[in-house]
């Protein structure tokens, strides 16, 4: 589905991603993990086209993506839930959701009901400004907003940051459901092991801008954790 080869990325003069390779299979749910500052967010941004890559290739279903702007990637079916949510603060919840409608393949005019089933709170908050919502509500809105695009691949950057436990569970359920029932490919950055274990099928461990371990989630053992996730 998505293949990233040899990607390098620099901020100013500092190299963040080093010859990074990553393969994501269709219908998989891959969890990317690593300590703070290893470059997870950077990687996702490169994938989304929000940061230019220095060198390397990104492909989606065989099509090159790295030459294309972010809006093309969104149209091609990548939905992005950024770290820190990035809600449009002065748009209402409804407007935040509507933004994605025009690029849906089915040209729907209304926000799909599904979103409100998944996150009922969004229905209640429909006409409030996105920026006024509490952190957790914003997070739900961000996921909902990405789902409006009807994506093939959903990228989530620490989706549970600041979310109340029952909703964390619910988000997990949603991701599982989307992944298992609708075949949505999911790329997930997550720090909380419990959640990662529950939702992820695959894991990738990052360190210093490289993927250092990759396997099925079942094989994530304490050794690896100690080596790459412990402080």
């Amino acid at each position: 589905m998505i293949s990233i080869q040899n990607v390098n990325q620099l901020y100013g003069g500092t190299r963040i991603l080093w010859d990074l390779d990553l393969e994501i299979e269709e219908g998989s749910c891959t969890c990317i993990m690593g300590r703070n500052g290893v470059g997870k967010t950077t990687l996702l941004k490169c994938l989304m086209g929000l940061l230019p890559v220095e060198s390397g290739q990104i492909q989606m279903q065989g099509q090159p993506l790295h030459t294309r702007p972010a809006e093309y990637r969104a149209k091609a079916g990548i939905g992005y839930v950024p770290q820190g949510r990035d809600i449009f603060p002065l748009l209402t919840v409804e407007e935040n959701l509507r933004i994605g409608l025009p690029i849906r393949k089915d040209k729907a005019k209304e926000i799909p009901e599904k979103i409100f089933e998944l996150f009922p709170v969004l229905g209640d908050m429909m006409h409030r400004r996105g920026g006024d919502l509490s952190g957790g509500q914003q997070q739900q809105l961000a996921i909902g907003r990405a789902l409006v695009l009807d994506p093939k691949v959903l990228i989530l950057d620490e989706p549970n940051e600041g979310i109340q436990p029952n909703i964390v569970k619910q988000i997990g359920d949603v991701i599982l459901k989307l992944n298992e029932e609708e075949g949505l490919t999911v790329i997930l950055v997550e720090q909380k092991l419990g959640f990662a274990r529950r939702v992820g099928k695959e894991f990738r461990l990052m360190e210093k801008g490289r993927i250092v371990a990759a396997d099925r989630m079942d094989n994530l053992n304490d050794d690896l954790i100690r080596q790459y996730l412990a402080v």
Partner: protein
Amino acid sequence: MKRLLAICCYCLGLMLSLSATAAEKPLPSELEPLLQELTESSLSKAIPVLDALEAEGGEALQPLFSYMLEGDLYYIKSSRQVIAVSEEAGQETFIDMLSGSEIEPLSSRDIKKIRVNNRLRGHLRDAIARLQLGSESAAVRESAVRSLLSDLDENTLASIREARLNESAGNVKDVMDMALALYRLESAAEASDRIEAIAQLEGSLEGDVRNALNRIADNDPSPQVQQAAQKALVGIEQKVEFYAFIDQLFFGLSLGSVLLLAAIGLAITFGVMGVINMAHGEMIMLGAYTTYVVQLLMPNHIEYSLWVAIPAAFVVSGMAGVLLERLVIRHLHGRPLETLLATFGVSLVLQQLVRTVFSPLNRQVASPEWMSGAWEINPVLSLTLNRLYILAFALLVFFALMLLLKKSSLGLNVRAVSQNRDMAKSMGIPTGRVDALTFGLGSGIAGIAGVALSQLTNVGPNLGQSYIIDSFMVVVFGGVGNLWGTLVAAFSLGIANKFLEPVTGAVLASILVLVFIILFIQKRPKGLFPQKGRAAE
């Protein structure tokens, strides 16, 4: 709107009737020596000649007087023959006044204008008015009587009395009665007569009536008459004051509409997109110059040129805006303050460009006939048509824009892009196109504003400069990012200014308004209609 159109037609009709009555009927030949004299007499000596002409020729002279009034009366140098040269659609026709027939075109070197000055013009107008008392159109008759009000004498009175007998139209009769009463007021020997006249004149807003009453109130030998006049005056003054208030309100609204037009485009480029666009004024200027060029291209259709100029200006300024966005502003995303500098540079370049292409002189933009003049509601209240149209136009543009932003996805997209560009991209919004379109839209509207402003003020390289500060003030006062705020701000500033002006004078009024804005912003640091919520902090 309908009402306006009706008034327009009425005015047009008036104009036409003035020139159309100048039919080419031959003049009695005994006038020839007098005409001859007209060509010879100097400006100061012409009045007796005109009086003699009027006395002898009567109504037949109306066309001659009209031509003379318009400055279209000439004589052939060699023969001293009096001719009229009228121009229509670039076509000159030469008419011999005596015979009333058209003659061969002559070169401008062979003929000489019969000069008129202000004094003669006044005289001619009175004469024409007297002659027009018998006109077929009631409107013409009415205005004829009105224009005679200011100097009534026994002679004129006689003609009015005569005309009154076979007058059928009610409103003309009223005016005639007023004229008669007015005359009676000042010339009747009996105090009771004068009081009666006062009663008749009560409530009239006509300036001449008021002046006469004022004179009577001060100087009449009879105290009763004086009192009556004073009482009548009080009533009149009250009315006048009321209308003066309306007048001022209109002035305020109209100034507001100008501010609104100038600011609306900025409300988009600056308010919504966040680009501090110092070249906004120059976009207005481009629109005004487009109007000028359009008029150059269609010299014979000035009446319609504005309808062409509006879309043309929108396109020209809009394209300029798109170019500016693509070439410069695109590279400055996330650096709003830098846009100030770059656009400031652009504004310098555009100004100089216009100076080089069109010369630094102001260009002449004609007002179409239907935009000139005023809608006379009564003698003390008349609303100038161009302002009225511009007011309507400003509102139209405003609501059209609102509709566009509400109904199309553009509105939503722009706001999304301006709030979080990266995220907007990730949602599949073609940010580049949205930026260009929005900036184009804002600039295009500025262009339209230029068309309107060309009807009010100079079309020159500095046009934009004079509006840029006001525009920013309006947008900020209203609250950045809120179009309604812009609307309210523009009108309130306009009205405040116009109500202050009579009290303080124009300069102090502007200063006070500025100080008021400064103080107001202390109270409401985000303008009249601030963006609310957590994110706005």
